[in-house]
């Protein structure tokens, strides 16, 4: 266990949870902090799961239901042109977080370097630390819209065993589009680094930009482990269903860990995921439209305040620079919550150097987002700190 990496992650993550606890005890909070979609899981998904459970008389293998792995393999073939063997290259997990944690245990030896763009989803720090890994941050910036730059990957990730890339990004909303993915792949395929491509927000990509799974880039299939799931694309966070796709020896290693740690993902949850893949009207398109509308309102609100932000290419978050209000984002967020009932997360909960940035989620209806900016407007002078 790497205590420094663990400590950093714990501190950052606990800051977010502390703010959520505070908000939970207040009335009429507009929550733009959390990453749990406010949309409910579509009814046909859980009705499908109830129906399948009724007819089932055996448990699931640790690797996950064959029907679900087959459905995921078909989807990758049909939507991405990527062919994976559902028996040996796909494993179902208890959400994306477990997928990442088990991946770290399977890939990282004590002292190994694990690179990730900065700012980052700090909940992954503990997984890296638990495996004994050393976190290496690759800087990103507003000038490049927080998109990872190939020269920075070469500079900072040299010698790293693993690169964790969340695309579209949490927390910034930056999208590494298809063209940039191909350029990144040129850098990565000459390295010794395994890439964990966390594509949990892949179905939420705006402005008709093309999203390309990193594994689909030339030379990347055999060195990329793809992580995804159903939590964000189908608003199924409570079901906890994620998956890993990649090299059979890696999948076997993760399976061995999972077998003695948590066993198979609960059958009912897997049935819900399977039902999601069978929907007559795919909810992903509907959700994308909803998030697109919210994103527009959010960008208009930030523009009206003259707040610079990362142009969100995908995902459910925006990343904004509130330095015109404060040089201390944590203090700003507490004041914002206290004075206006609007919850955002301070940037330093996604990396130490982001003291004037905030993460804002798109997980409230458009009218509530507009209301959040109205409240901010009314309290603007008192938010300066």
């Amino acid at each position: 266990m790497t205590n420094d990496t663990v400590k950093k992650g714990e501190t950052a993550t606990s800051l977010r949870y502390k703010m959520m606890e505070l908000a939970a005890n207040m009335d009429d909070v507009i929550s733009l902090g959390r990453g749990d979609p406010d949309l409910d899981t579509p009814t046909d998904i859980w009705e499908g799961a109830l129906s399948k459970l009724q007819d089932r008389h055996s448990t699931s293998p640790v690797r996950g239901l064959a029907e679900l792995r087959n459905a995921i393999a078909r989807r990758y073939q049909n939507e991405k042109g990527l062919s994976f063997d559902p028996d040996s290259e796909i494993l179902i997990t208890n959400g994306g977080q477990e997928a990442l944690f088990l991946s770290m245990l399977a890939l990282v030896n004590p002292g190994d370097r694990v690179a990730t763009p900065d700012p980052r989803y700090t909940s992954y720090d503990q997984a890296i630390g638990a495996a004994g890994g050393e976190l290496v941050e690759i800087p990103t910036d507003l000038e490049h819209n927080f998109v990872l730059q190939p020269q920075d990957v070469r500079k900072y990730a040299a010698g790293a065993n693993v690169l964790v890339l969340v695309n579209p990004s949490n927390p910034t909303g930056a999208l590494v589009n298809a063209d940039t993915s191909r350029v990144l792949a040129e850098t990565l395929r000459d390295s010794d680094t395994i890439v964990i491509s966390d594509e949990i927000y892949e179905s939420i990509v705006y402005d008709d930009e093309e999203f390309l799974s990193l594994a689909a880039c030339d030379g990347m299939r055999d060195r990329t482990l793809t992580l995804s799931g159903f939590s964000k694309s189908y608003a199924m966070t409570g079901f906890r269903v994620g998956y890993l796709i990649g090299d059979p020896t890696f999948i076997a290693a993760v399976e061995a860990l999972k077998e003695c740690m948590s066993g198979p993902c609960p059958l009912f949850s897997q049935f819900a995921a399977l039902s999601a893949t069978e929907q007559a009207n795919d909810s992903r398109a509907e959700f994308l439209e909803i998030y697109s509308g919210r994103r527009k309102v959010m960008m208009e609100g930030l523009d009206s305040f003259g707040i610079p932000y990362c142009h969100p290419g995908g995902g459910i978050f925006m990343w904004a620079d509130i330095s015109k209000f404060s040089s201390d984002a944590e203090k700003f967020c507490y004041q914002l919550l206290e004075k206006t009932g609007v919850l955002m997360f301070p940037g330093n909960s996604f990396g130490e150097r982001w003291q004037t940035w905030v993460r804002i989620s798109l997980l409230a209806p458009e009218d509530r987002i507009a209301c959040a900016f109205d409240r901010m407007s009314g309290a603007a002078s008192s938010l300066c700190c």
Partner: protein
Amino acid sequence: MTEHRETFVAKRLAKRVSIPPHDLPPVEFDASPVPEGLLDWLREHLAAGETHYTARPGIPELRALIGREIGKIGGTSRDTDGVIITHGEGEALYVALLGLGLNSESKLAVLGTCRHGTLLDLLGISTTDFNGTESADAIYRDIAAENTERAEALVAAGGVRFMIVALGKLLFSSESDGNKLRGVSDAAVLLGNLDSVPGLDHFRLGFVAGPPSLVKRIQTWKQALSICTAGPSQRAALFAIEGRSTS
């Protein structure tokens, strides 16, 4: 059989999982039937919007139920802040080890049979059979172990920092009685699963229970590992357990 070769990834797997490449056979076994009324119960809660993350340590009613049940079989009753719901007993053990600060440099003395030897091996945690005298960072005690007094005394005297007691499927089991946990220190961290509750085979549930100060530390790792346990599974457990107590 899948053809395994020395792939780019295979050459870079961590030493802790340096297992020979293998194809595990699909393990499926017959499950008990879904209890009557459970599907309607789940439908009601899902329709009410219970499709999101639950409270991170678990649904409070289920934690309270487990905390009370521990008291009923002779242990220290726990409130909600002393219980976490997990995906099975293995996950409970893993997050407990991390939360207690135990790692590959720690020594675990085992009293009784350890069902989690493979997990401990994979994590590189060294174990020894408890002989009543040695120092260790923690004692792992199976609930069925005999001659536990010396182990309890060592922990009480501070010679060993932690006691982890694995209950397996004891909780809510018809074999339990009011004395099962007699003599177990109230400082102990208890682990177990809910597999003895009929109809829960499909739902994969376990728990950690103990002093709130320790449980709080363990909770940060549960959160890091899988955020929270699947909500429908927890809701199903409430139905199955409460149904059992009223049947």
